[in-house]
């Protein structure tokens, strides 16, 4: 299908573009910007007047629950929610059941996502077999199956020697390692930030040092092994300051933050609101501000959704027994646009945090120059809307942002030149 996107403001941070121009697409690729290429006849024109046209968003962490937890969500349901949210690439962590430590699981996820056809799903392979932190996973085979990196997800590798070997091996395979920094003994049994709120509510706490001590260990191992490493969903100011220092010293590490960490703090738990039960936990106002600063300075380059759809029962439990996580695909772009409104980032910077920066981490391109793959997100930056359980597409309705009013709404999403989502106007 040949498509022309007319009159939109094209923001392509990777190419430093920010101008009102037309985009022409054929055979899944961008074939022209501005004037219609000779001989091109669009089968469909999208009027993008007053709208922003940018590369399709790349989300570095989205749990799709398939295989094994289809009662929470499926690859089809969640990639559909991604399409509605302008997200064209999702990175799926390996903590599925069975664990993605063999090519079979990776193939299955790939196959299902192709069938659904709403978004590109990239897999992270397991770092150790069954995420047990004992034996290395077959990283070579996982890479061959298409894994863009390896990770032990939320299961800590307690044995430092195993972690060192795993990093060395990943480095030999030229696979980046995705790290969740949490010291398991310090975090033991915790469900909220150890601080004013946890002491008041009597919730077992996860101290800030559970994160920073793990970051300290991993940074030294990264330096020792020379592996490419990425820190996922950091939550504390102290941790991002350590990353900044390491980057300053020349270590090649990247980091992302989950969008909710930039808006919520431990105070939002109120009286045991299980929608605010997340991992790592919501921390203090100071941490939230520290994460915003790190984003502004580029220490943290990407913002992800950390999407974790749940069934209703998972959240209908006393706070410590409720399942952590937020169904977050649909609030990713609106929350990031709010950072622009709050003068934390410029609009092109904000878009970069959702497109070319995360794309680079998983080794793919994300730009809209002639010849590039036509993954496109078009959104109306002025449209107001409210998140409700009725308008959520994700199978999981667990969100602390229900009832929030957002500004900026996706109108069209194109995946490799195909319209996978459009609002009917």
């Amino acid at each position, binding site marked *: 299908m040949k498509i022309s996107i007319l009159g939109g403001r094209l923001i392509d941070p990777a190419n430093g573009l920010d101008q009102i121009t037309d985009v022409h697409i054929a055979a899944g690729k961008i074939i022209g910007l501005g004037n219609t290429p000779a001989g091109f006849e669009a089968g469909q024109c999208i009027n993008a007047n007053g709208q922003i046209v940018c590369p399709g968003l790349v989300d570095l962490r989205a749990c799709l629950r398939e295989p094994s937890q289809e009662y929470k969500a499926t690859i089809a349901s969640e990639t559909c929610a991604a399409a509605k949210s302008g997200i064209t690439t999702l990175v799926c962590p390996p903590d599925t059941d069975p664990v993605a430590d063999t090519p079979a699981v990776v193939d299955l996820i790939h196959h299902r996502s192709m069938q659904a056809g709403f978004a590109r799903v990239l897999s992270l392979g397991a770092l150790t077999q069954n995420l047990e932190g004992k034996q290395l996973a077959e990283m070579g085979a996982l890479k061959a199956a298409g894994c863009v990196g390896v990770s032990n997800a939320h299961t800590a590798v307690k044995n430092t020697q195993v972690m060192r070997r795993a990093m060395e091996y990943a480095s030999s395979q030229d696979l980046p390692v995705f790290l969740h920094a949490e010291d398991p003994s310090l975090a033991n049994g915790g469900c909220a930030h*150890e*601080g*004013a709120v*946890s*002491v*008041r*509510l*009597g*919730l*077992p*706490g996860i*101290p800030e040092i559970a994160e920073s001590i793990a970051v300290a260990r991993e940074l030294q191992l990264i330096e020792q092994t020379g592996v490419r490493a990425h820190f996922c969903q950091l939550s504390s100011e102290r941790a991002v300051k350590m990353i900044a220092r390491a980057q300053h010293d020349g270590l090649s590490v990247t980091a992302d933050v989950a969008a909710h960490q930039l808006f919520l703090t431990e105070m939002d738990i*109120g*009286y*045991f*609101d*299980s929608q605010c039960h997340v991992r790592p936990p919501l921390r203090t106002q100071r941490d939230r501000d520290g994460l915003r600063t790190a984003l502004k300075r580029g220490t943290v380059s990407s913002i992800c959704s950390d999407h974790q759809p749940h069934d*209703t*029962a*998972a*959240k*209908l*439990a*006393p*706070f*410590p*027994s*409720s399942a952590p996580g937020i169904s977050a695909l649909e609030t990713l772009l609106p929350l990031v646009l709010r950072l622009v409104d709050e003068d934390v980032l410029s609009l092109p910077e904000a878009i970069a945090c959702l497109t070319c920066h995360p794309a680079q981490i998983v080794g793919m391109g994300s730009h809209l120059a002639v010849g590039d793959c036509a993954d496109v997100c078009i959104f109306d930056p002025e449209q107001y809307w409210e998140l409700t359980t009725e308008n959520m597409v994700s199978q999981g309705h667990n969100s602390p942002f229900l*009832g929030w009013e957002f500004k900026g709404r996706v109108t069209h999403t194109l995946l490799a030149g195909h319209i996978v989502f459009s609002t009917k106007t």
Partner: protein
Amino acid sequence: MRRRNLQLDAQGHLRHLLTIEGLKRQQIVDILDTAESFITVGDQQVRKVPLLRGKTVVNLFFEASTRTLTTFELAAKRLSADVLKININTSATVKGESLLDMLQNLEAMQCDMFVVRHGDSGAAHLIAQHVAPHISVINAGDGRHAHPTQALLDMFTIRRHKSEFAPLTVAIVGDIMHSRVARSQIHALTTLGISDLRVVAPKTLIPTQVEGLGVHVYHNMKEGLHDADVVIMLRLQKERMQGALLPSEQEYFQDYGLTNEKLAVAKPNVLVMHPGPINRGVEIDSEVADGPRSVILEQVSNGIAVRMAVMSMVLGRPPINTESEGAAQ
């Protein structure tokens, strides 16, 4: 919308009792005053008043407890309520859905009140959020969070011996970290405006940022007890010896066990309290527990009157205009 204080109805009357936090001083005083009237019921030949006749109270205990369960049951019976006890197998994990399913079943049986004890902080709030509008929930202890009736009976006991709260120095000694009793006592004592509230324990048993609750932290027992009017000892659970919190019971008793010798630095008319059950020779010496300064047994009998007061006040609210309550949400 979640910020609304769940335990008050639209008119500000106590609908549930989930935590002391957020109660006004006058509300606490009202509960204590009402409890004062219930004390005499225990002296009657028929130890019963017909106040809650025809009401059904369900004791929902997800965690083993003998004393609290017994006093709640006794309190409900002295109010002439029908009491149903449901012990839920504590070893099996109760998943959220089945918990709420069970509540709906009980509601269908036309109950009026749930008295809830649960091992998870926030369980009573969760249940209160989901019960039908005519049902009240009383928190009989949730995880490390709150045990409001215990704190109220402690306040009641203090008030019977000390005329005013304001000038008091109170020291709470022991495992503050894991204690729901301590949290509720701290909220009650600060709301009643006492001048000096102290917590005394080694650092391992004191949560970080506890100062934010309005207490002064002491790690030395004699400094902490100096000039105290009231000393509240907390029970030390045996399992605290694991997890590197304490080296041994002996060393704990040596440093933080309450003995007459340590008590000597407190005021001569100091009250010694303990929510029970006590571990003799671990947190308190028998000589002190059974001594003239101890009001530990008095606490137990006061517990019945205080629980009667809470139950009757919560169920004896003036009728609610349901429309205006709906609007307040």
